[in-house]
């Protein structure tokens, strides 16, 4: 009797696993139609989020962020360089998101995928206004700090944008720049490492991504859900509660009401993560 | 680039025709197709022009923009000159063979050609006039050409469009003044006058050359080869002639054959002979284009197709 029971359970478990593999879409849909998700979350629920600052000792600023299983490390390297002629008083912030085969089988080795390039570019556009590039000036027209932020994904399980944005915010807050001075006679920049200056962010950014799976709007989709979703909405808020970005992309139209729902959820999410950061 | 493969019978038909002085569209060997020229369509550039060579709206079509930038002088650069940087790009929206890296080779070939023709003083442009303060600042002219369609004779259209764009180019006036700093050393400083009214043309632009490409087909050659004629071309020669009737650049293309020296000298002679007519044609087109220079339609307009100039 007992024996029978276990074997039956195994049978069921096996069937479910097989079901997930061969009928991925149907598998997910069964959950969604029951008002739940395959990992037991509610539609509007984000995964557990952990932020740790200063995780890479060789970088001037760094962080590790985990949202569920998605793990990202961000390291910022500061170097002195010459400013652009058009903006002699501004430094640089260069962002690079790396999605290597190491973090998921869906990425191929070689040149950065379109997905990674799109993420890099989007984050670059977002932070252009969040960081006051004038504070990176050492000597006008001569020397400025150039920050290169490498955002490396260690484990990919969906929602890379939220994770990467949070990691960059945390790493920028962790960033300490030495006091630098330009010797106008020699043209050499010397840095005093004993004085560490913190960079003041104009605003902290709190991202929240929603995905449309069939007709269901779910927050913080994981990899399995993302594969079904053709459409996503990213809402980024700052610490004063104002919006920094709404980015709806993908095939399905999303009603304006839904976008407003996303904004409301994003406000709640921002409150939660501001405590974590 | 010759992506067009013709049958032996078509090739024979074209070659024998050229040898007898009959071209596929009835032209004589030195006749050029219809040329359409417009200027001033890129408002953000200092000068721009578009040239199409071909009839009834089908033809090689090139857009050229000239952008002037002030550069700070660095050691090793010419001390009292400005510079010209050419770049030619074949747009993948023009033809499928330009997809991906498909246009790399032709881009390099055309960029080189343009550089050979207008990149230096041989073009007639006075590059010293592009110097702002010796060893300190100078103008760089970026000539960016975009090839929108290819139907034979790209080189000629490129040079015609470039000449028009450079003739239409206006540089802002620069005021140079001497400042004495605290330590008593006099230094020159400059200011770019931001006034659309207060601009000047390029010195020497009127001396810029035009180019004609001669394609050797069978035992004869033709000017302004069509796409089909290019497919049977064994060798070609682009000759740039200035209004002073000087040859200022020559580039040979076509990998199949070399030129007999006698043919080469015949071609250069012919180039000089037709140059006068070519300049007259260019001048008339340019004058017409200048009348409509940079016209922007006030009313929303929907050009429908081919017979609109562009």
């Amino acid at each position: 009797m007992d024996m029978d029971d276990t074997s039956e359970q195994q049978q069921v478990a096996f069937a479910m696993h097989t079901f997930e593999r061969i009928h991925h879409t149907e598998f997910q849909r069964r959950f969604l139609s029951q008002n739940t998700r395959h990992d037991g979350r509610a539609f509007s629920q984000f995964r557990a989020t952990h932020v740790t600052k200063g995780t890479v000792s060789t970088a001037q600023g760094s962080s590790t962020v985990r949202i569920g299983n998605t793990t990202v490390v961000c390291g910022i390297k500061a170097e002195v360089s010459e400013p652009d002629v058009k903006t002699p008083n501004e430094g640089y912030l260069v962002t690079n998101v790396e999605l290597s085969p190491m973090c998921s089988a869906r990425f191929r080795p070689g040149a950065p995928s379109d997905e990674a390039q799109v993420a890099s570019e989007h984050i670059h556009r977002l932070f252009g206004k969040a960081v006051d590039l004038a504070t990176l000036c050492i000597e006008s027209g001569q020397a400025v700090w150039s920050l290169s932020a490498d955002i490396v994904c260690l484990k990919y399980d969906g929602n890379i944008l939220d994770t990467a944005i949070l990691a960059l915010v945390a790493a920028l807050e962790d960033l300490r720049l030495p006091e630098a001075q330009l010797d106008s006679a020699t043209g050499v920049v010397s840095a005093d490492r004993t004085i560490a200056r913190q960079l003041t962010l104009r605003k902290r950014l709190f991202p929240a991504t929603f995905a449309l799976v069939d007709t269901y709007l779910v927050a913080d989709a994981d990899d399995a859900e993302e594969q079904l979703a053709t459409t996503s909405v990213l809402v980024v808020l700052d610490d004063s509660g104002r919006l920094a970005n709404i980015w709806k992309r993908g095939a399905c139209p999303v009603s304006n009401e839904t976008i407003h729902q996303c904004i409301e959820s994003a406000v709640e999410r921002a409150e939660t993560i501001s405590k974590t950061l | 680039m010759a992506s067009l493969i013709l049958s032996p019978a078509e090739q024979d038909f074209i070659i024998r025709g050229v040898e007898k002085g009959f071209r596929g569209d009835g032209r004589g060997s030195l006749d050029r197709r219809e040329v359409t020229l417009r200027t001033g369509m890129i408002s953000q550039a200092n000068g721009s022009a578009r040239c199409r060579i071909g009839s009834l709206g089908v033809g090689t079509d090139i857009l050229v923009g000239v952008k002037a930038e002030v550069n700070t002088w660095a050691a090793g650069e010419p001390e009292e000159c400005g510079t010209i940087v050419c770049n030619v790009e074949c747009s993948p929206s023009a033809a499928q063979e330009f997809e991906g890296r498909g246009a790399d080779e032709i881009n390099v070939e055309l960029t080189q050609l343009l550089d050979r023709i207008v990149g230096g003083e041989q073009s007639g442009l006075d590059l010293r006039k592009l110097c702002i303060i010796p060893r300190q600042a100078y103008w760089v002219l970026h000539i960016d050409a975009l090839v929108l369609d290819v139907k034979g004779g790209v080189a000629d259209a490129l040079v015609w469009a470039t000449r028009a764009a450079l003739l239409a180019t206006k540089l802002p006036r620069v005021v140079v003044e001497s400042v004495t700093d605290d330590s008593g050393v006099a230094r020159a400083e400059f200011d770019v006058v931001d006034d659309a009214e207060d601009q000047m043309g390029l010195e020497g632009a009127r001396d810029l050359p035009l180019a004609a490409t001669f394609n050797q087909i069978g035992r004869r050659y033709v000017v302004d080869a069509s796409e089909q004629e290019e497919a049977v071309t064994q060798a070609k020669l682009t000759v740039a002639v200035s209004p002073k009737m000087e040859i200022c650049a020559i580039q040979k293309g076509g990998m199949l054959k070399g030129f007999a020296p006698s043919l080469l000298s015949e071609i250069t002679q012919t180039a000089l002979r037709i140059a006068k007519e070519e300049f007259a044609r260019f001048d008339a087109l340019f004058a017409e284009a200048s009348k409509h220079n940079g016209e922007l339609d006030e009313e929303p307009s929907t050009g429908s197709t081919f017979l609109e100039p562009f």
Partner: protein
Amino acid sequence: MPRPDRRENDQIRALHSILGLLNRVDGSAQFSAGSTSVYCGVYGPVDVKVYDEKLDRAVIEVKFRPAAGVSGTKDRWVESAVRGTFEREILAQMHPRTLIQINIQAREDDGSADAAAINATTMALVDAGVPLRDMVAAASCAVLADGAAVVDPTLEEAAAAQSVHTFAFAGSDIGRAGSGGASGSTSPVYVDSRGDFSVADYDRCYDLCLRSAQRVLAFMRTAIEGKIAKESQISVV
């Protein structure tokens, strides 16, 4: 404060378009708003490499080239925006195992170029006869430092703006909104709002862009219908 080009705040720049201007592609269009101008060329449906082939639908590929300089990460971003916007509108299942290639070439960017790229793509797809569920029209809007919202901002206005918003809508959706429906009942296919803005700013820009998109759509339809009317006069023997 008057705008540099003396436009009203809710006035888009003069639109101009040419259909079928490139001869080597299946369909092409030039779309200009003021001096912002974009070309688009469409090939397709054509044979696809076996590696990329999809058994149930056409593969859609988008390439964007900037007006000057080399193509970079920025352009991948625009490509992904355009691809996403047209993924549903192109009836890709009607041409399985083929490729629809969209090449966009910016001619001049004087602001609102993303919207121009989307509009040019719609027109080129129509010109190519690629089956579409619907036409897509896009529009931009900027909130300036003084709080004024201006549609179809120039590069200069966008650079100085507090926030810039770009929306794209499907034609039927615009039609519904036009018949008196509130903006709440419309569903944009593409949204990119960025800068520093409030929900009220967003809503304001949404309405302005919806209205601008309406005008753009009407313009595109007129241009296309004009061309068809011309071609329908083909004499029949």
